C-alpha cells in the first residue's frame, strides 16, 4: 500500500508537465515528510567531510584496481577461452593489487558502516531527535528515510564508479561491452548495493542500540572484522576437525563439503563474492561440488545471464534476508522506544 503510494508519488514527481513548465509549486505541496527527510539526508551526506574521505578512499582504490587489471589485460585476454573480455576488467589483476570486485567487497561494508553508524544516536545526542519526532511524522519515516538516503547516495557512487571504470576500460582496451556484459555489470552493481544495504542496516541497528556513536561504529567494524578474518579461521578449524578420511565414501566427502560450504554461506561477504564472481565470470556453472556424472556431456561454455542469476538466487535471498533481519530488529527497537531529549 505504502509502496504503491510512494511509486505514484515518484511518477507524479517526474511528471513531464512539471519538467517542461518548470512549475514546481504544486509538486512541493504534495511532498511528504518522508521525502523531505530523505532529501535532507542526501544533502547532509554530500556536504559531510566523512563522505569526502570515504569517497576518496573508494575512488583511489578503484583507480588502482583498474590500473592493475589494465597492465595485465593483454595476457589475460590471450589465455582466456570465453568471449567475455570486457567483464575481465573487473575481475583480473596483475597480482599486486586486488581486483575491482574484491575492492568493492572490501570497501562496501566500510561505506555502509561509515555512513550509517551514527544515524540515530547522533540525532539523539545533539537533541534534534526529540524535536524531529515531535513533528507530525511516523517514527518509521525517520529510520526508513535514513536508510533510503544512504542507499541512494551509495547507488549514485557505485553506478558512477562502475561507469567510470567501464569508460576507462573502453578507452584503453578498445572493445565495447556486449549487451549481456552490460546487463551483467548492472546486476553486479545492484548486488553490490544490496550488499552495502545489509551493512548499512546493521550500522543503523547499532546506532539505535548504542547511545555513543563511537561504540556503534566499533560494534559495526567488529562484526565486519569477525566475518572477514576470524570467521574463516573458525570454519577452517571446524573443517579440519571434522574432515573425513582419505578413503571415505564419496557421499561422505560430498556431505562434508556441503557442510563446510553451508558454514561459509553464513558470512555476508562470502554470499556477495559468490554472487558477483558467478555474475562476472559466466563460465562458473556451480558454486558447490559437482560430480563427474553431472559434468558428463556438459560443453565447457559460459552460461547465459538468466542461468547465472538462477545460480546465485540463494545467495541473493540470503543477503536480502540478512538485511531484512537487521532492519526488523532496528524497527522493533526504535518504534516503542521512549524519545527523551538528550
Amino acid at each position, binding site marked *: 500500500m505504502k509502496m504503491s503510494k510512494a511509486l505514484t508519488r515518484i511518477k507524479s514527481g517526474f511528471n513531464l508537465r512539471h519538467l517542461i513548465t518548470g512549475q514546481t509549486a504544486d509538486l512541493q505541496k504534495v511532498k*511528504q515528510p518522508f521525502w523531505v527527510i530523505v532529501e535532507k539526508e542526501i544533502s547532509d551526506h554530500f556536504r559531510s567531510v566523512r563522505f569526502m574521505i570515504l569517497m576518496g578512499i573508494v575512488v583511489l582504490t578503484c583507480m588502482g584496481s583498474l590500473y592493475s587489471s589494465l597492465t595485465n589485460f593483454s595476457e589475460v585476454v590471450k589465455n582466456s577461452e570465453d568471449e567475455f573480455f570486457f567483464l575481465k576488467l573487473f575481475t583480473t589483476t596483475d597480482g599486486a593489487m586486488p581486483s575491482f570486485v574484491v575492492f568493492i567487497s572490501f570497501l562496501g561494508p566500510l561505506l555502509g558502516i561509515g555512513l550509517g553508524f551514527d544515524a540515530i544516536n547522533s540525532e539523539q545526542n545533539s537533541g534534534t531527535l*526529540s524535536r524531529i519526532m515531535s513533528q*507530525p511524522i511516523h517514527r518509521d519515516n525517520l529510520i526508513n528515510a535514513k536508510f533510503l538516503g544512504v542507499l541512494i547516495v551509495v547507488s549514485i557512487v557505485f553506478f558512477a564508479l562502475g561507469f567510470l571504470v567501464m569508460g576507462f576500460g573502453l578507452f584503453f582496451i578498445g572493445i565495447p561491452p556486449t549487451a549481456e556484459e552490460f546487463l551483467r555489470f548492472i546486476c553486479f552493481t545492484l548486488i553490490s548495493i544490496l550488499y552495502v544495504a545489509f551493512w548499512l542496516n546493521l550500522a543503523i541497528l547499532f546506532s539505535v542500540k548504542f547511545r555513543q556513536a563511537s561504540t556503534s561504529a566499533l560494534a559495526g567494524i567488529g562484526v565486519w572484522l569477525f566475518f572477514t578474518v576470524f570467521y574463516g579461521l573458525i570454519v577452517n578449524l571446524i573443517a579440519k576437525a571434522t574432515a573425513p578420511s582419505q578413503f571415505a565414501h564419496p557421499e561422505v566427502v560430498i556431505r562434508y563439503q556441503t557442510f563446510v560450504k553451508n558454514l561459509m554461506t553464513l558470512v555476508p561477504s562470502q554470499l556477495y563474492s559468490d554472487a558477483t564472481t558467478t555474475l562476472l565470470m559466466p563460465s562458473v556453472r556451480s558454486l558447490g561440488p559437482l560430480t563427474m556424472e553431472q559434468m558428463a556431456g556438459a560443453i565447457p561454455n559460459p552460461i547465459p545471464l538468466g542461468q547465472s542469476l538462477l545460480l546465485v538466487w540463494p545467495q541473493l535471498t540470503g543477503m536480502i534476508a540478512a538485511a531484512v533481519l537487521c532492519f526488523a530488529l532496528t524497527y522493533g527497537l526504535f518504534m516503542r522506544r521512549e524519545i*527523551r531529549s538528550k
Partner: protein
Amino acid sequence: MASHIIELSGLTKKYGDFVAVDKLDLKIPKGEIFGLLGPNGAGKSTTILMLLGLTEPTSGSVKVCGINSTREPVEVKKKVGYLPENLGFYDDRSGLDNLIYTARLNQIPEQEAKEKAKMLLQRVGLTDQNKKTGTYSRGMRQRLGLADVLIKSPEVIILDEPTLGIDPKGVQELLQLIKQLSKEDGLTVLLSSHHLHQVQKVCDRVGLFVNGKLIAEGDVASLSAQLFGREPITIEARVIEHDKSKKDVEKAIKKVKNVKAVQKNQDTMLIDCTEDVTNEIAQAIIESGLGLSQLYRREYGLDDIYQRYFEKSQV
C-alpha cells in the same frame, strides 16, 4: 468537554518498580497558560512525553484536542508544538534552514515555509537569519526553539523547562513572549518548570507535581487557599510601643470580630482571622494608643506553597 484541550485521566507510567507518574488526572481548558511545577524527577517531562506519544503510558489515557496521543500520535503532533528540555538544531545549518526543515516536515509548501520562517525569526527577535545554529547562545537557541514550535501554527504549545539556563533578562523576555503569543493567537500553553516566581508571573493556573502526583492545582490564590485553607488569613502588624501595657492591645484586637488568635514577638504581631479585617485591626491598635508602622495581609507566593509541599512530601 470540547473546551478542554488537554485531558489526562488515570495516567500512570512505571519504569520497572519505579512509578514516575501516578494516576494523574488533569484538564486544561483552551487558551490557558498552565504551569506544571515540581522538582527534578517529579515526572513532569514523562507526562509531557506521554502527551506527545513519545512514550507509552503504563495505564490511563491521554487526550489532546480530543485525540488519543498514544494511538494517533501523528494527529496530535500536527496540533501540538513541543519545545524539548534540551533542544538541539542541526548545527551546520542556519536558523532559517532549520525552521524551513521543520515547516516542510509539517507539509508546508517550500515558499510559504520560507516566508513564515522569516516572519517568525523576526517575531522572536533573531535578526541574523543566516547564522549557523552551532554558534547560537543558549538564549538564542531557546528563541529559535520557540519559533520552531510556532511554525506549524499549533493549537497547543508544550514547553519543557523553557527558562533553563537563560539569564534573568532573557527569562523575562521569553516569558513575556510566551504570554503575548498565548493572548494574541489564543494558544493553550503548558509549561513545566522548577522556577517558581518566573512561572507565577505568566501562568493562569499551576499544578504542583511531586513524586509523580499532582498534589494541588489552581491559580496561585486558590492554591494557597487549598494549602493554607485550614489556616485563617494572617495579618502582620508592626507597632511602635509606648509605655502602655501590651495586654491592652492584644485584648483590643481579640475583641475585633472574626479574629481568632494574636501572636506577639517584640514589635511584630501575627493576627489570625477568618475574614479580612485589616481596617478594624488598625483602628484597634491606634485606639489602644500604639503607633502603627506597618500593617499588611500576608500573601502566600508559590515559593511558600512549594516549600510547604516539600515539607509534606518528605515526611
